[in-house]
């Protein structure tokens, strides 16, 4: 019964969040809407980590690798194609490329028998290698077709989404597209996690070997979830590149890699909506600190992580949901 109440609270929280996202363009300034779109890109990144870490038990410390690959892939495609009508297919291709990269890495991880903390180490190593490689691509010889990789400064001039050559999406329509993408991704994941496949993933998270003994091809399921998470992170990265018109290697660096871990752990890795709420709050908090001149945003986020790990290991949003579920249960009248 407690789990049902928890699920109901999650649904209510999602409905409230979805309404808030839809209403935002009518309530806040265009500048804030634009900022919110970047938050949504990171929300997708957090959802991808919550999927594989919270629901399957795979701790990826390098989820930003797929975020960066998605951003670079979209930029490379669009800077070569140069046709605004091609932005949506390019976005789809970027998502698939990020998912393909995750599938390739996942194949070696899961079929190589790598599990538990070693997945975190491997994925972190991969993202740092990609970041280091991309940082040294500053010379004009480093290009893919007409797209200069740009080294430390990254790739610039990435075109925004467009419906046609004369109809480029402005900040608000871009935000609306990102909000729809986040809402649709959440609903898709909820649907998948409620399916047989999703139940199997939850079982793998709790007891991998036992789940295999019931006939589940655990490695294939882990690989599928990892690739799906790569697609979602890649979508976030592509939307981030579209939002800013640029993508840099630092999006795949150590600090960047730690951010989704902090955001997901702080909210509660076992719940997708908790990870979403936590990401939006911490992104807002972090940006507010940065824009007011404080240099300590990352330090404060680090403190948040330590406090959460020590005092609320299940995450503050999940803890609040559980508290609300308990209060709801105790306030119910006893029948008879």
């Amino acid at each position, binding site marked *: 019964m407690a*789990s049902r109440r928890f699920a109901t609270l999650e649904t209510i929280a999602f409905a409230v969040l979805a309404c808030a996202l839809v209403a935002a363009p009518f309530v806040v300034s265009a500048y804030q809407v634009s900022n919110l779109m970047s938050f949504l890109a990171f929300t997708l990144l957090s959802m991808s980590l919550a999927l594989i870490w919270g629901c399957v038990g795979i701790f990826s410390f390098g989820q930003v690798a797929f975020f960066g690959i998605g951003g670079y892939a979209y930029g490379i495609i669009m800077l070569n194609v140069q046709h605004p009508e091609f932005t949506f297919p390019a976005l789809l291709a970027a998502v698939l490329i990020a998912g393909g990269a995750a599938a390739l890495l996942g194949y070696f991880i899961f079929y190589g028998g790598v599990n538990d903390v070693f997945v975190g180490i491997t994925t972190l190593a991969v993202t740092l290698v990609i970041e280091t490689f991309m940082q040294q691509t500053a010379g004009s010889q480093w290009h893919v077709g007409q797209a200069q990789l740009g080294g430390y400064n990254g790739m610039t001039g990435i075109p925004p989404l467009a419906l046609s050559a004369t109809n480029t999406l402005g900040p608000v329509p871009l935000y609306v597209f990102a909000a729809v993408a986040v809402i649709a991704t959440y609903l898709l994941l909820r649907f998948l996690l409620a399916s047989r496949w999703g*139940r*199997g993933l*939850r079982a793998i998270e*709790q*007891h991998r070997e036992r789940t295999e*003994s*019931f*006939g589940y091809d655990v490695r294939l399921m882990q690989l599928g979830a990892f690739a799906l998470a790569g697609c979602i992170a890649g979508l976030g990265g592509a939307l981030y590149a579209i939002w800013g018109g640029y993508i840099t290697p630092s999006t795949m660096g150590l600090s960047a890699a730690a951010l989704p871990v902090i955001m997901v752990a702080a909210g509660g890795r076992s719940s997708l909506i908790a990870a979403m709420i936590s990401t939006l709050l911490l992104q807002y908090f972090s940006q507010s600190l940065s824009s007011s001149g404080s240099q300590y945003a990352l330090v404060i986020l680090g403190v948040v992580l330590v406090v959460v790990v020590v005092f609320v290991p299940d995450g503050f949003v999940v803890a609040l949901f559980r508290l609300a579920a308990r209060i709801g249960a105790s306030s119910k009248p006893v029948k008879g």
Partner: protein
Amino acid sequence: MGHILSLRNVSKRFGGLRASDGIDLALNAGELRCIIGPNGAGKSTLFKLIMGQLAVSSGEIFFREENITALPMWRRARRGLSIKMQVPGIYPDLSARENLRIAAQLHVSRAALPEVIERWLTRIGLLDAGETPARFLSHGQQQWLEIGMALSAEPALLLLDEPTAGMGPEETRATGELVKSINADGTTVLVIEHDMEFVRQVAQRVTVLHYGRVFAEGSVAEIEQHEDVMRIYLGAV
């Protein structure tokens, strides 16, 4: 009736240690066999070899005439092998009903799944505790839940590794009746058990393992009169 399971000269080495040493074992379809032996005789290793949790060092395993030696555990489970592990293998955060659903959902149709879950909840006496997270069940209830999970996959061969470990006399007797009724329904059962009272209650035949080898085989009465078995195992019980 043909052999549902046969092991031919199966060995498992861990470095210099031979946990299983040339085991030949044949199990008839519909049989209820108990495996006994001193600690370290290689009983649990044998189950892990049959289920595919461990790869054999040499030898072959046949299940329903098919050589399954190289198949991974999940493929063996899809072919009709199921196990209740020695270390409890339930999903502690999930309800008893959800535990059964995960165990059964790959083996029964979507339409039949609710009926299968309710049937097993009833049979293992957990119908009223269906929504209880498995971590809050008693030890005996957890053991029964795990047996129910292993059976809800509707296996042809069920491996039970110490199903009564940690149970009191009443629970042990009830578990014995459950195992016999499962076997009466047509499921072949292979049980590792230390409790000779339980073995007497359920076993049709008994295989004794010692130092990774099949030491003796026969009915319960034959095994209990076997002088060497008395010396190495039963005398110490």
